């Protein structure tokens, strides 16, 4: 297995000192055209009670590409992410307005079953959250609740191999998942998600609780999974966004007269453009470390 240079954990940050001319030191991943987008988002706003947490987001998510969402804390990127598999439904008083189409079907349509949505659009959380069960049962849980009828043993092996975890855990499938290291737990959570065979994987800061080596392994895995899955990843780590993503969405928050924060999508483009030649000053300031 030979990771591309862009995946080395000790790669220098992609931005030059402010004001200098940018010479790309990084081989950015080539984004394909957005034709046949998985998600079409238009005029999306999310309210918590009366508070408009995110305002007027427009973007399209490309098929089998990695889309990164970056921005300072409180800019609503996780909120937007949670709209894609209707996890915001679980928050009392959360309300979504605007359009989110999944393969041109309205995700918030009256007849859409959120359970079915979550089987197609999986999610990996910030803190590794394996079930307090065996490694095997963690992987088998999703297929079981979904009424999987095939051979579970084969599915578990296949899934763990797919998630590059099989060799590490094949001798202890029946031991508790909580005995694994943090990085292994997070890769188990990714494996658990792909066991359901979704089309999209949402990742909410998947590496923020991990050390650099574990982070590098997750990034390798993301790159491999992008051959088969569409991935949307929220990250605070700009190098991570630069390393793994094809496209990057930059969010920030406006503060209104009443002191309330409203998340906004500022710029959405190919990752190479966002990190080398952004069109908005705020993006430039953020990625060069001048704020956020």
């Amino acid at each position, binding site marked *: 297995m030979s990771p591309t240079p862009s995946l080395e954990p000790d790669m220098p940050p992609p931005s030059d000192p402010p004001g200098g001319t940018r010479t790309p030191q990084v081989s950015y991943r080539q984004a394909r055209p957005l034709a046949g987008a998985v998600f079409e988002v238009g005029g999306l706003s999310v309210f918590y009670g009366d508070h408009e947490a995110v305002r007027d987001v427009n973007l399209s998510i490309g098929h089998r590409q990695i889309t990164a969402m970056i921005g300072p804390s409180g800019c609503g990127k996780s909120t937007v992410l949670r709209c894609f598999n209707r996890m915001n439904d679980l928050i009392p008083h959360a309300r979504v307005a605007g359009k989110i189409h999944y393969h041109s079907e309205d995700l918030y349509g009256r007849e859409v079953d959120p*359970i079915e949505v979550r089987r197609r659009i999986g999610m990996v959380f910030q803190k590794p959250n394996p079930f*307090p069960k065996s490694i095997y049962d963690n992987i088998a849980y999703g297929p079981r*609740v979904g009424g999987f009828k095939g051979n579970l043993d084969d599915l578990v092996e296949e899934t763990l191999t797919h998630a590059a975890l099989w060799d590490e855990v094949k001798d202890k499938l029946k031991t508790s998942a909580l005995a694994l290291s943090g990085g292994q737990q997070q890769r188990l959570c990714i494996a658990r998600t792909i066991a359901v065979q979704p089309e999209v994987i949402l990742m909410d800061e998947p590496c923020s609780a991990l050390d650099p080596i574990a982070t590098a392994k997750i990034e390798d895995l993301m790159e491999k999974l992008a051959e088969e899955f569409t991935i949307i990843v929220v990250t605070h780590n700009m190098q991570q966004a630069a390393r793994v993503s094809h496209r990057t969405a930059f969010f920030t928050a406006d503060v209104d007269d009443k002191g309330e924060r409203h998340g906004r999508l500022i710029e959405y483009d190919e990752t190479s453009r966002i990190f080398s030649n952004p069109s908005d000053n705020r993006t430039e300031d953020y990625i060069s470390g001048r704020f956020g």
Partner: protein
Amino acid sequence: MASSVLEHDAPPGVPRLKGRGTPWRERFFRLSLWTSLAVGVIFLAGLLIYVVYEAWPRLDSRIWTNFPDIIDPTNAGAQSAIMGTIWVIAFTALYCLPTGILAAIYLEEYADPERWWNKLIEINIQNLAAVPSIVYGILGLGVISRGLGFGQTVLTASLTLSLLVLPIVIIASREAIRAVPQSIRQASLALGATQWQTIRLQVLPAAVPGMATGSILALSRAIGEAAPLLLLGGLTFITFNPTGVQSQFTVLPIQIFNWISQSRAEFVSLASAAIVILLVILLAMNSLAIWLRNRYARRW
């Protein structure tokens, strides 16, 4: 040798690390903590020693092989009360555990805490847990024994005690359900599980040890209750074991109450022996609760 060189080589003027000892306030505070603890433990130990001392002449197998005998206390036993206690508690558990656990699941997982009716239920459960047990006795007598016509039976007693401990079971089960981290529910739902699957397969298994511990402690409170059952009336001299829920019965606290109020000294040691039996049952149940808690304690 090297260490002594180091010790003697401390340069002059370096501050020494000697303190002024533990301040007296600190000592006083610790002493008062110890005293408070000692008061409780000494009283309990004294009580136990006294009861065992009083019961000593009668602490033999006759206490559970023989039946109460008003004429010959030296040969009387408490078998009917022990069996009555077991019957009543078993049926109390049967009625109050499913009800309490289901109510707790509703309140924790389904109820919207901002709706007024849920707030009302919430406040009422807290209040019910604080209602004196004699009030439940009145309820049992008026509604269950006379109103529903169940009479002075095991059924009436179990239902009355179920009502008495139901709020405790609900509160303990809610605590156990709440202790299951939200991240586990989210992980399950994100994999396409329904809410019921999430509760059945993730939340309940993780909450069972906590619910069991709380339920056992609630039942051990029910075992020691005499007041509500006394109100049901006329259950103090029963010389047969219950044969079903329709049976008449007596329980240990009532039997003890009955013997203690007799004037002859033999009855006092008989009562003490019954108290020892009751305490052993209670300690066994509490030990089981502690064992369960430690055995299945989970770190997230």
